[in-house]
């Protein structure tokens, strides 16, 4: 009655099962690694693109979008997440991939408008009737105001928020880097919860009722107001803010590995085409295409913006100065 081989017999298939579950992306699958508040946009884009691709080529494709903090997502791709395309909150998160050879360093010049098919800006979402009378950036550092914005170390959207505040302070009459730094460090002392992602911050403000003002992207603010009902929140546009330009790119090394280059490039082109631009506008991103922009002009309030290039040069510089380990944000948060 000896059964000495029973244990290995049971163990081996289990281990084999564990190892074989490594489903490899095939040629008809596309993974878009994106950041948090594009969830609704890409759900629609994925479905529309798959339908169009089927119509054009007869091939069934499965497009999946993964959402998370922009920096975290970039990190995941670096660590081996098999992204065919990345649609992240800021160019630095794609630069980091280029630094590791996943795509060419000049990736941003491959598509129109610096590879940013849609834009947004940084605005304020306040509770209905604006009970704290928040009109512009200086109001955010009043004693009675609590500000919700996510953690710039983990959220790309939050970095744009940071730079919007900084840029506003620096561009005032008599503004300077010192004054901007003083303003921003005061601003972050008014933040009671530092969520890891932009959508988390929105949920903290909208659903958990914390804070007096949410610093949010215009698309996120418009979407929140639409979902919660216009009787709950107001949008306040500050006197000056940053134009946010979230970029998109094909990850060359991975699409070549998966054999999905053609599909991936078509997917990004779709974002620039009228149909993709309409979807962006319906999800409150400002489209680049003039015709679509004109059609949806009514839903967007007038905003006076500066660009990242005008104030900070490029993302690589902004990242190393403000958000790298030991950078300005770290100094500010340690200076509490």
């Amino acid at each position, binding site marked *: 009655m000896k059964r000495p081989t029973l244990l290995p017999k049971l163990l081996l298939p289990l281990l084999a099962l564990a190892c074989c579950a490594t489903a490899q992306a095939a040629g008809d699958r596309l993974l878009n690694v994106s950041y948090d508040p594009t969830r609704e946009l890409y759900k629609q884009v994925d479905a529309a693109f798959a339908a169009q691709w089927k119509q054009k080529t007869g091939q069934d494709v499965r497009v999946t979008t993964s959402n998370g903090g922009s920096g975290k997502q970039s990190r995941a791709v670096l660590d081996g997440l098999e992204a065919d395309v990345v649609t992240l909150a800021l160019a630095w998160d794609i630069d980091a991939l280029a630094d590791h050879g996943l795509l060419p360093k000049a990736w941003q010049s491959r598509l129109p408008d610096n590879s940013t098919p849609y834009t947004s800006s940084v605005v304020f979402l306040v509770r209905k009737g604006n009970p704290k009378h928040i009109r512009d950036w200086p109001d955010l550092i009043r004693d009675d105001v609590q500000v919700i914005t996510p953690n710039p170390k983990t959220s790309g959207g939050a970095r744009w928020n940071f730079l919007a505040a900084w840029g506003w302070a620096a561009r005032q009459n008599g503004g300077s880097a010192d004054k901007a730094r003083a303003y921003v460090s005061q601003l972050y002392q008014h933040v009671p*919860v530092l969520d890891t992602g932009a959508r988390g911050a929105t949920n903290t403000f909208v659903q958990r009722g*914390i804070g007096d003002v949410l610093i949010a992207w215009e698309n996120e603010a418009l979407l929140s107001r639409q979902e919660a009902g216009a009787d709950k929140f107001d949008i306040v546009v500050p006197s000056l803010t940053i134009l946010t330009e979230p970029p998109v790119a094909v990850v060359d090394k991975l699409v070549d590995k998966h054999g999905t280059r053609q599909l991936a490039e078509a997917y990004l082109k779709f974002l620039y085409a009228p149909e993709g631009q309409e979807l962006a506008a319906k999800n409150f991103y400002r489209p680049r295409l003039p015709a679509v922009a004109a059609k949806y002009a009514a839903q967007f309030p007038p905003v006076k913006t500066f660009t990242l290039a005008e104030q900070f040069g490029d993302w690589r510089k902004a990242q190393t100065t403000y958000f790298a380990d030991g950078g300005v944000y770290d100094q500010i948060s340690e200076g509490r």
Partner: protein
Amino acid sequence: MRNRALPGFGLSLGVTLAWLGGIVLLPLAALAWKSASLGPATWWAQVSTRRVLHALSLSFGGALAAAVIDMLLGLLLAWVLVRHRFPLRRLCDALVDLPFALPTAVAGIALTALYAPEGWIGRWLQPLGVQVAYTRLGVLLAMVFVGLPFVVRTLQPVLESLEREPEEAALTLGAGPWQRFRRVLLPMLAPTLLTGFALALARAVGEYGSVIYISGNLPMRTEIVPLLIVQKLDSGGDTGPAAVLGAVMLAASLLVLLAVNALQRWNRRWTEAG
């Protein structure tokens, strides 16, 4: 010196070592190797920033405080559950296992829902000027929650098996209840109590899921070390900084584990001598 009367030594040793080696030791060695390869300068640069120091002091200080509270609360609960008979005792007893069995993420969002300013409990604390969610108090609360069963469950069997003679002798000698507790019971329970304390401490120091929702994650205020590790991993670039903090946490867990082992040996000697 193994017992040769029974078969299966080779097989069980093989399976145990292979599994232990592959699942636990190999990955831990990868962490030790990675953090050792970084050099003292990197270590110092990583560990000496004010933010990391603050997170370390919150994680360890908070866990110590939580373990002390767990010890007191756990002693009370275990005592009442073992020595008193009251309605709902069984339910209370079963509830003690809840923090064990409830997934940490669920515990985290549930505690946040309770103690947020608009929450079930938070709305009563708000007028009193006490804010739990998104403060250090919230971190402490979550740590107390996850550590509590360790103290109760280590104490209960010992309390049950404790002979009552010494206590009763003290009673006949006219000792008051407090004296009886302090002079007779506490010395007998000390090793077990400390074991429970150490287990609760180990759990609280490393806890992630139940803390991150209620803490608000503010640097220099409510940021714990495990969250910092996750952030350093997520923020791209090198895994070195995360490995340094991970090694610190691992060293701390090893120390606690050694302490628990020493305590259990002490305990065994105590019970055998007594």
